[in-house]
């Protein structure tokens, strides 16, 4: 049989599995639905203070770099799996690709198109360096070609012939021997918990938004007025361990990322005071318990899940919680509230499950064959990698996807 594998999802897990398989001599097709690879991690910040705090974010970036020089690999970004049919010699797959107009594999990043574009600002450009998207894009709302078919200057000047303005959605067919699903997670939708004011008060943000802000700006500011917040609250288990929203599981990563973020904020802004509202703190993994003890020295931990976030007249957030020591309801002012969102099943899970003939588990993640066979599924030749199977951090996702690669190799070898 043809030794080839289709990897669905280009997050840390998908990239790792694809790299390992490609380096083992297997032909790999990597399909990612968004325009850029990397998944969730591309918007995270490095959490180093005077020292590296082992968040693994840089490791994910490193993996993406390795991908550029991997052999045997076809990359399909902005693409989706259309059809999957099991047949003679494995799986027959149809991949549909949205038009991107610029072929990133050809683009040499010479800037000519941006310079020559007659619109001001240019309608074809490389997004800023902090953006997760690092290939040239066309803003079709401004581009003259898409507005009135009047201009084709960029396509003419591109020395690499990377631009094709008349590109249509394309369809390609493949045949592969095995499948690795690495479609990742979705962060909890914070607007579902109405009492916390997400989407209503600008200074209630999610941890993802905080990560992104720190990655882009390197410092913290309040969305409402740009000032530097002095009192910051983190609210743990947001959308996890919560039967009311149907998520009867712990997301594993939010305690660790929150402490690393809180520690980083304290380092960047020593005059700020940080409070973490929590139910239980999860410590596991290497050297994390010590890190937690250090955090307790500089960060205030309050054991309660607040019941309400409001905004008062002075543009201050008012958080209502229960002071268990005093046995009474308390209200405190904060400048910023960060919701430590949990990991929920990826948004395409249901769709993929149906397409591939798989099942979900009681929490809505992909169901694995057994609790100890987390890579295997009930469908032969289909393997799971990373957070699509359940909450994991980056290094665990890496290890898990290597397991998936190993299982896929063994499956191809045995055929």
């Amino acid at each position, binding site marked *: 049989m043809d030794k080839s594998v289709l990897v669905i999802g280009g997050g840390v897990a998908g990239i790792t599995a694809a790299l*390992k398989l490609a380096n*083992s001599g297997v032909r790999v097709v990597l399909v990612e639905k968004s325009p850029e690879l990397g998944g969730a991690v591309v918007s995270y910040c490095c959490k180093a203070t005077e020292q*590296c705090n*082992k*968040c*693994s974010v*840089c*490791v994910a970036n*490193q993996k993406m770099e390795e991908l*550029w*020089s991997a052999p045997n690999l076809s990359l399909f970004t902005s693409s989706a799996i259309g059809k999957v049919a099991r047949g003679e010699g494995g799986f027959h797959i149809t991949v549909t690709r949205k038009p991107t107009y610029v072929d990133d594999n*050809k683009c*040499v*990043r*010479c*800037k*000519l198109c941006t*310079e020559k574009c007659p619109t001001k600002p240019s309608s074809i450009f490389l997004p800023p360096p902090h953006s997760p998207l690092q290939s040239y894009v066309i803003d079709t709302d401004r581009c003259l070609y898409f507005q009135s078919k009047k201009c084709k200057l960029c396509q003419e000047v*591109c*020395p*690499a012939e990377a631009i094709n303005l008349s590109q249509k959605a394309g369809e390609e067919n493949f045949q592969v021997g095995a499948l690795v699903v690495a479609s990742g997670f979705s962060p909890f939708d914070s607007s579902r918990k109405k009492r916390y004011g997400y989407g209503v008060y600008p200074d209630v943000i999610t941890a993802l938004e905080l990560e992104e802000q720190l990655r882009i700006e390197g410092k913290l500011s309040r969305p409402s007025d740009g000032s530097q917040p002095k009192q910051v609250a983190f609210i743990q288990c947001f959308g996890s*361990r919560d039967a009311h929203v149907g998520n*009867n*599981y*712990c997301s*594993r990563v939010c*305690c660790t990322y929150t402490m690393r973020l809180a520690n980083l904020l304290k380092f960047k802004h020593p005059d700020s005071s940080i409070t973490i509202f929590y139910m239980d*703190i*999860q*410590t*596991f*993994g*290497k*050297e994390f*318990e*010590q890190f*937690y003890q250090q955090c307790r020295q500089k960060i205030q931990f309050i*054991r309660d899940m607040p019941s309400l976030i409001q905004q008062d007249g002075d543009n201050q957030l008012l958080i209502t919680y*229960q002071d*268990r*020591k*005093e*046995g*009474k309801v308390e209200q405190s002012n904060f400048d910023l509230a960060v919701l430590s969102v949990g990991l929920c099943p990826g948004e395409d899970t249901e769709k993929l499950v149906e397409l591939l003939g798989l099942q979900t588990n009681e929490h809505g993640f992909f169901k694995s064959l*057994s*609790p*100890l*066979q*987390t890579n295997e599924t009930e469908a032969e030749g289909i393997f799971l990698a990373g957070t699509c199977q359940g909450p994991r951090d980056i*290094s*665990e996702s*890496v*290890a*898990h996807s*290597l*397991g998936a690669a*190993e*299982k896929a*190799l*063994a499956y191809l070898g045995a055929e």
Partner: protein
Amino acid sequence: MAEEKRIGLFLCNCGGSLNAHLDLKRLKEYSQGLLQVVYVEELRTFCLPEDSQRIASIIKKENLSGVVLAGCPHRNSESIASAIARESNLNQHLITFAPIREHCAWAYPQRETATLKAEKMLASAVARNILLHPLEEEELPAEKSVLIIGGGIGGIQTALELSRMGFGAIILEKKPHLGGLMKGTAAPFDSVTQPLELISSRIETATKDPGIDILTSSELIKLEGEPGRFQAHIKQKGKKKTITAGAIVAAAGYLVSFPKESYGFPLSERVITQSQLSAILADEKKTQALLGGDKGKGKNLIFILGMGGESTPLTTAFALKVSSLIKEKYNWNIFIIYNNIKVAGEGLEALFRQCRSQGIILLRYDESRPGFTVSKEKIDIRLSGLLTSLEKEEEVTLPGHLMVVEERIEPEPDFENLAQLLGINVDPQGFLQKDNPHLFPIATNKAGVFVMGSCHHPMLLPFIMEEAAATALHIAEQLSEGKIRVFKERAMVDKGKCTLCLTCIRLCPHNAIFYDRAAVISEALCQGCGVCASECPAEAIEIRNYTTHQLMAEIGVSRKAS
């Protein structure tokens, strides 16, 4: 003086876009005047296959022995260089880059300044290229067998995975039998996994597997050699033998101990550890004797967590599962007293809730730890600041008739010794290998030596199984086809200059240096980090292509050109 080089310099105009920023004609003339440069050409896009093919053909035609590519700092530069190298048979390490696009063209608004700076960069790049040596990769034969230290579930599973991929595995176990900690675990791990059944079936498969050798009552006493060819000296029941292995995996588990100082009272009939309870549960008679009949009527069975440091998902899972089982079958009042409930593992939160709905009482203490009064028939547990009601902090005394205490998970006392033998680090707690995100979790500072499972940090079984697969795959890739690829002479010792002060041996983070009359660097272990070269007081070590001479030439020329 080495023989003259024939250097080719290729200027990329990036699809014509650089002409506006740089005087490429002048740069071309300037380059032609540089020492040992015999060929100069302007290209449009050297990152595209057509141009790299052209470069390769010119290398052959002009018999070039060095190439400088002046253009962008391409994210693909390594693969471009390797493609050119493959086509032209020129060593990849003789192809270097001068990023004049980002460093000159785009950095200066004036064309003149940018061009001047580009001249300097080109001169520097050529000066260094003249002195570069080819760096060859070499394939050394590698043993297709792996020594696994530790015969618990992690070690056995890794051996099985390796054997399936056609590798030999040797399991070294210091105890007289395989199985490790799981042998004494009776409580089911999840809805389907019975640990005793699991471990015995795995032991049976491993014993029957012709690809797996099992050495019990054995210990490692010395490790020599390098990846591909380690020699492990071992002692089996007093007898010594030597095994050769291509790679080493430490899967040495952990130790549990009762942290008496955190409780202030010893173990007794009334106070037993989780391990003791687990052993009792494996025996129906003993279980009846402890829990059965009327024994639990009106009595309190207490599980306590988090006293000797933070609890772990491992011990929390045990308390939750076992209490739920006991509640089903016997008539004890069950309490679980904890500080942080560790539910970061698949199914644990659901189990936590299930316990609650079964009528098990979960009590959480905070900073104020519980106090104990031990008497003959019971242990009184004083809990303050109970987080059970809206009432103000108050003290509650709970009589305990049987108490199950959590043990502390600790590194084995011989880890330090093992780490030293293997040449790897330990973390501040004493578990194997320091935490470092830049290392893949199972990799260590020493090439060819890996750690997996709970000996680097305690982990739940599904994660151990995942690591076993990852470890096996990683090793299989490195030793595939019985060969291992290494760089030849990446770091070189000048034997005449070496005074054997041992500085490098102490400082090499990868334990790659030995001595034999002078320092000797193992090519298979060296990672080319350069620490030894920068620290050697006698300046006896040089890193190929980063020698002082080469770097000075690069800086020196650029200074002269200014």
